[in-house]
Every structure is written in C-alpha cells, then in structure tokens.
C-alpha cells in the first residue's frame, strides 16, 4: 500500500513535476519507508544487507541510553537545586524530555534542512551522516545553551565542516565537535563556567524555577579552580552530576559502547587505545607530583570517568570518517587522543575539559598517521621489486 502511494506521488517530484524542487526530500522519505528495489547492473549480483542507513541508525540507538539518562539528570539537577523532591523518576525524566526535545528538533530541522538543500542542489541522495551528528550536538552541549546558538552552531558545522569538503565521508573534522568548538570559542561564557549546567526554568509546567544566581560546577571545573572535587569513582560512574547532557553517566555510555563494539560499527582498537592513552598519561601526572595542580592529582581512574572522556572515546573518536583508517593507525590515533585530552586538562588552566580539542587535533593528524602506515606498505612493495 505504501508502495502504491509512493508510486502515485513520484511523478510530481521528478524532473519537470510540480514539486521537483523537493525531489531530494521525497527521495529521502521514499528510501526511508521502503527499501529501494533497484538491482545491481554490474559487479556482484548479491549484496550484504548492511547499508549506511542501518549503520547510522545503530549509532543513534547506541546514543539512546546516554540521552535518556541525560534527560533524567537534567530533571534531577533541577529538582536538587530547587530543593524539591528528587525521587519522582517519571517527573524528572519528563522534565528532561521537555528541555531536550526542542534542542533535538532544532538540531535536526536546521541540519537536515541544509542537507536536503545540498542534496537537491548536487542532485544526490541525502546522506545519513547527519542523523548521528544531529543527535550528538545537543548531547555535548551544556543544558542552558540557547536554541538560537544551537541553530547557528549546527548551520556552521554542517556547511563549513562537512558540505564544503563534499559531504559525509569526505570531511576532515568531526562535525559535532566542530559545532561545539564553534560555540566554545564564539560564546565562551555560555559554554563553560558554573552557570550553564543547570536548567533553571519550568518547562510546560514541569520542573521547578531556580534562582538565577544558582551555580553548579562540574567536578573538572572545581578541580580547575583548585578545589579538590568531591565525589568518588562510583558517583562519577553513575553520573548524577552536572555536565553536558550526554556525557555524565559512564554506565549509560558503556551500554552504547557495547552496542557499537558488538555490531562492529565502532572500532575497538580506537576506543580501547583512547582509554589506555588517557589512563597512562593521567597516571604519569599522578606520580609526577605536580604540587598545587588539583587536576593533575585527580586519580587516573577518575580522570577516565569524568567530563567528556568516555563520551568522546566511545562516540566521537570512533567516527570512521574522521579517525585513522588503517588498522595500525587506529592504535596510534586512539592513544594520542587519550594522552592529549588529559594533558590539556592538566596543563591548560583555561579549559577544564580537553577531550574536544584532543579529538579535533587528532582528526587533523589522522591522515598523517595513515600516511605512515600506507607508506610502509608502499616501501615494502618497492623494496620487493628492487631486490630481485
């Protein structure tokens, strides 16, 4: 039945049809609803069932635990700050949903809107990459980020971090991180500090109003201000603490990580070596005995579960497009991200968090790492042909 409706509608959207300006949109919806029955003309007659729609939607599914927990945490922090009841799970989650939903909608509408336009202009199919990016962006921003800022950041990153390079698969930098970096440098006061981690207004009658002056510092923010963070490893793992929406709960992220690793969509080599690199570096700072630097003295295991480290390692560093593509290169790439993230945290007093910059920096170097590995193969071949 769906097929019949689509068949009836299609002529309108084709070249010369009344709605041909919306061809890419129609295409997008059609392939979303029904698997195209196009068959192969050359090459293999049979194909694996996997396609990029499936891959991207599995990443979105993997993000769901972290998102749901993030929503709950928004409600929890709000109630906590207002001194209200924090036991009503459903109400807290509902409040979080009410806060997050507009952000997700704005992110998708702006980002996909640009993708639709570009696809139409280039006469291509719509690429699914933004499904993931659009979910990631609201999750890595502080909860108080205004919607207009979100929209500007999304537009900036989709256009300047992705489309000008040629779209999904061609970009150098992770678009979600570019969006965050853009806001981080353009509107620093809205992106860090003590005031941005708490939703303060009621939303559709849900939640509580919190006094404007109320502040909430993230543990890393406290440490950067040379206050020894309160809390232990377990609290950090559960994640009922201030932070960007998706990043606080290690448990929720671990569920996502399991999904990504099990399906093979994320590389365990990248993900694992980010943790190894981070742990080693943090441990070196621990034994290095940097007096008076509270961040350096956070135990290494706490470093791994604080801030955006886990979220970055699981969902950002493993982006196949912007990470190293050679198998050996993935180890190097991951190790360096982990090491850099901790180093930035410890040695840079300006930024309490280093994951974003570490990943963006390594995005830039991933092609160089790959170059070294590919070049080894090339030299081996050259040597072989000369040695006879």
């Amino acid at each position, binding site marked *: 039945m769906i097929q019949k409706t689509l068949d009836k509608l299609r002529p309108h959207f084709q070249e010369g049809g009344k709605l041909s300006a919306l061809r890419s949109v129609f295409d997008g919806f059609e392939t979303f609803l029904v698997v195209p029955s196009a068959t192969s003309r050359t090459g293999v007659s049979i194909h694996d069932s996997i396609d*990029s729609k499936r891959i991207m939607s599995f990443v979105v599914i993997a993000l769901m635990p972290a998102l749901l927990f993030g929503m709950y945490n928004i409600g929890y922090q709000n109630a906590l700050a207002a001194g209200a009841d924090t036991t009503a799970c459903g109400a807290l989650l509902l409040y979080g949903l009410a806060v997050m939903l507009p952000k997700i909608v704005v992110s998708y509408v702006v980002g996909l809107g640009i993708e639709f336009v570009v696809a139409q202009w280039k006469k291509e199919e719509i690429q699914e990459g933004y499904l993931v990016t659009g979910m990631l962006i609201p999750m890595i921003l502080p909860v108080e980020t205004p919607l207009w800022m979100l929209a500007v950041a999304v537009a900036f990153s989709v256009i300047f971090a992705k489309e000008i390079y040629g779209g999904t698969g061609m970009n150098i930098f992770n678009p979600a991180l570019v969006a965050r970096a853009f806001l981080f440098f353009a509107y620093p006061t809205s992106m860090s500090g003590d005031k941005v981690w708490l939703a303060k207004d009621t939303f559709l009658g849900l939640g509580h109003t919190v006094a404007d002056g109320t502040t909430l510092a993230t543990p890393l923010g406290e440490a950067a201000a040379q206050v020894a963070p309160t809390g232990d490893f377990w609290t950090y793992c559960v994640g009922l603490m201030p932070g960007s929406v998706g990043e606080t709960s290690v448990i929720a992220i671990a569920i996502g990580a399991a999904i990504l690793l099990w399906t093979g969509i994320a590389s365990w080599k990248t993900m694992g070596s980010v943790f190894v690199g981070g742990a080693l570096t943090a441990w070196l700072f621990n034994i290095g005995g940097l007096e008076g630097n509270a961040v350096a003295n956070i135990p290494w295991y706490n470093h791994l579960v604080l801030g955006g480290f886990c979220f970055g390692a699981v969902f950002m560093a493993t982006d*196949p497009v912007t990470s190293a593509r050679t198998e050996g290169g993935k180890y190097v790439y991951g190790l360096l991200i982990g090491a850099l993230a901790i180093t930035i945290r410890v040695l840079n007093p300006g930024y309490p968090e280093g994951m974003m910059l570490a990943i963006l920096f390594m995005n830039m170097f991933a092609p160089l790492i790959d170059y070294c590995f590919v070049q080894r193969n090339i030299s081996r071949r050259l040597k072989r*042909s000369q040695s006879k």
Partner: protein
Amino acid sequence: MERHFKLKKGLDVRLAGEAAATVRTATQAPLYAVRPADFHGLVPRLLVKEGERVKAGTPLLTDKATERINVVSPVSGTVKEVMRGARRKILYITVQPDARQEAVDFGKPDLAAISRDDALELLLKSGLFAYLRQRPYDVTASPLDTPKAVFVSAFSKMPLAADFSFVAQGREDKFKAGIALLSKLAPVYVGIAPEQETSALLPLPEATVSVFDGPNPSGNVGVHINHLAPVNKGETVWTLGAEEAIFVGELAVTGRVDFTRRIAVAGSQVAESQYVETVVGAQIAHLLGADTPAEGAHTRIIDGNPLVGRKVEATDFLGAHTTEVCLLPEGDDTHEVLGWIAPRLKQFSANRSYLSWLLGKNRAYDLDCRIKGGERRMIMSGEYDRVFPMDIYAGYLVKAIIAGDIDRQEALGIYEVAPEDFAVAEFVDSSKLELQRIVREGLDLLRKENA
C-alpha cells in the same frame, strides 16, 4: 611437500541451491557462440564469413596486435551470424553445429620432448592460449611476454561455484597432462583447498602445489599470486582456470580440442541444482532446459557465480571462462517496508547489527539481487581489508583508482589485482560502490597509459 597458507581474512556466503554432485549431459544445443568480450583486452580480427564451414578448432578470429592468438570454434558446423553492436563491435559469432562433430587435428605433442616455442605455438594455434589471462591488467595473455609463472587455482570458494574436484572427476589425467604442457611455458603453481590434498588431482610433479585454507576469496588465483610470487612492476604472471587446464590436457593427450565441460547450474530458482555437461558457447536457454525463466519472470540468469558473474539473458551464450550458471530471484518486485531497521532474519549480513550470525555459518540464504542501499562515499574504514587476504590496502587502492592517480595505483599494488579479487569487498561494502567496475576501468585505463 606442499606449502600451507592459513588465511583469516575473507567471508564465506552460502546460498540456497548449491549444485548436487550429479551430472546431466545436455544434448547438442541448436546454436553455439564465441564472445570476443570474454577475451578481454584482445582486439579481434574476424577470420570467417557467414555461411563458412568450420570444425572444432578452426580459428574464428585472431588478435589484431600479433595475429597469433586464435579464438577457435568450439564445435564443427556453419558460421551462422556475426552479431555486431555499436561501432561495429563484434558481440557474438554464432555457429550452427553439425550432427556429426569433427575437430581439427593439431598433432599429438610429445610431452617429454616438446620445446617452449613449440608448446606456445601449439596453444596459440589451437585457440587455447586465448584462455590464458595475465596479471597485470587481468587481460588475455600475450605470446610476446615471458611470464615468471603460470598460476592455476583448483578450487573456488565463491557462492554456488562449481566444485572443481567434481568437475574434473574422471578427467584427472587430462588435468595433469594440461599442467605438464603448461609447465613448458613457465613454472606452474597450482593452488588447492585442504580437502583436495588427498584427491586424484595430485600428484603434480611438474608444478609447485600450495594449499590455501581460508574463506572466500581464498580460491582466487590473485590471492595465490600475492602469497607466492607477487607481481612487481614490469613482471608478468599468467593465469588459467583449472577447467581450462583440462582443455589443454585434452589437446596434449589427443592433439585435438574438446571444449566439453561440466557447468554447475545452481541457485534458488533452479528446480534441481546439478552439473550439466555441455560445450563452451552453448546457448543458455538450452543449457537450462526446463529451468529457463519465463518471459517477464523476476529471475536473474548469471553467467558465472553471483559475485563475479555477468547478468545475461536466456538467449545469450555460455561464456568462455564460465564454470557455473546461477539463477537468483531478481528482487525488483520486492518492496520491503522499513527494511533498513528491520531484523531481516532471512537475509545475510556480515555485520552483527543483523542477527543472521545467530543462525550459524552453514545456513544457506536465498538472496535476491537488490543493492539494498544507496551509493555513498566510503564511510566505514577497514571494511574491504577484512575480506581482502592480500598485502594491499584495498580501500586506498580503490581511492587511487577513483582519483585516477596512476603513480599511487602502482605504489599501492594495482599490478597484483584483478576485479574478481574485489568481489567479496563489493558484497560487504556498506557504501555500495561498484568496486569491480571501478577496478576494471582503472586497469583498462592504466594499460592504455602504459602502452
């Protein structure tokens, strides 16, 4: 003692309708044909006219460059038609067979004493040389080259592929004679599967036998070359299908050509999958008999296996290098709602986001020919390398080909590969790129540039 290679990379896909180990002998087809395109890289010059009488072994065409590589008629009869396409390209030369078959006598060679030149001349004259292919470029070999080796693979792990052990049954001595004659040209390497170690195909005293144990494409001759004698720039390696080594053996033993071969007719759309004994070039409809799909049926006929073979019509003819003909559902009448997120238990995927891995490795799938996704840029990394058992960065090579960067293609090892080596990678590719077409076009362009 054979050398053993244990290969980890690759992927076996089992499809429903594998050919059972029984043989049906096809009657004489009403029409046979030679297709010049099967001898890729050979520019044909026609030697016969319509209505001319030919024997099995009479040259129908030769190559323009050297005028030495003959392509001969597989049967005796009358040349019926030279079918031409755009720009007068020869598509087919059809031959209507005689009831009584005659073959040209090329003279029985003395295998012990024959020189390299005589062996080469015999193969050229008899049309069997045209079956040899060369790396680099994966084109018909040239008699002007001195190859460093001849490679023959005695097995294929492609889905629905014919089992050479069964195809050669009763003709093992011919296979051995064929290898013996080939060894006059260059050192011969034969790659076998572990289960063939005890078969009657061995021993092969004239050849270096190696065992390749691993999933598809471990049977690809390209994989064997990469492990044993990788092709460097300026070197040439020849390859020959194992079934075609039997043709060579027939010539070595009898002095005549006999293009009879066992073809596996397989796939889910075949009522009784089994082997059919027929002659190269037979019309496909005749070969399939009752299994021939009705007009308008959503069934695809593949000349070859589903990963490497060519989509054909029932009125087309069996290819020169074809070892199996497969019938699969086309799938263009299937409309799967929200398929990209559905569990799709009945469909195969190497990716664990589908649950097909739960059902065990030996389950046979009934796959159709849908692409099941839109073409994208290369997004996932390492997808190709997992199924590419060679010391080559497949993804980077494909990118170099797309970019047309010849120096980089050379550096990354394009001389070692053939399109078929990318078949499994093309199957698993989530970006749905037509890798075999890309590699084929890349090789053709490179050959032109280097000429």
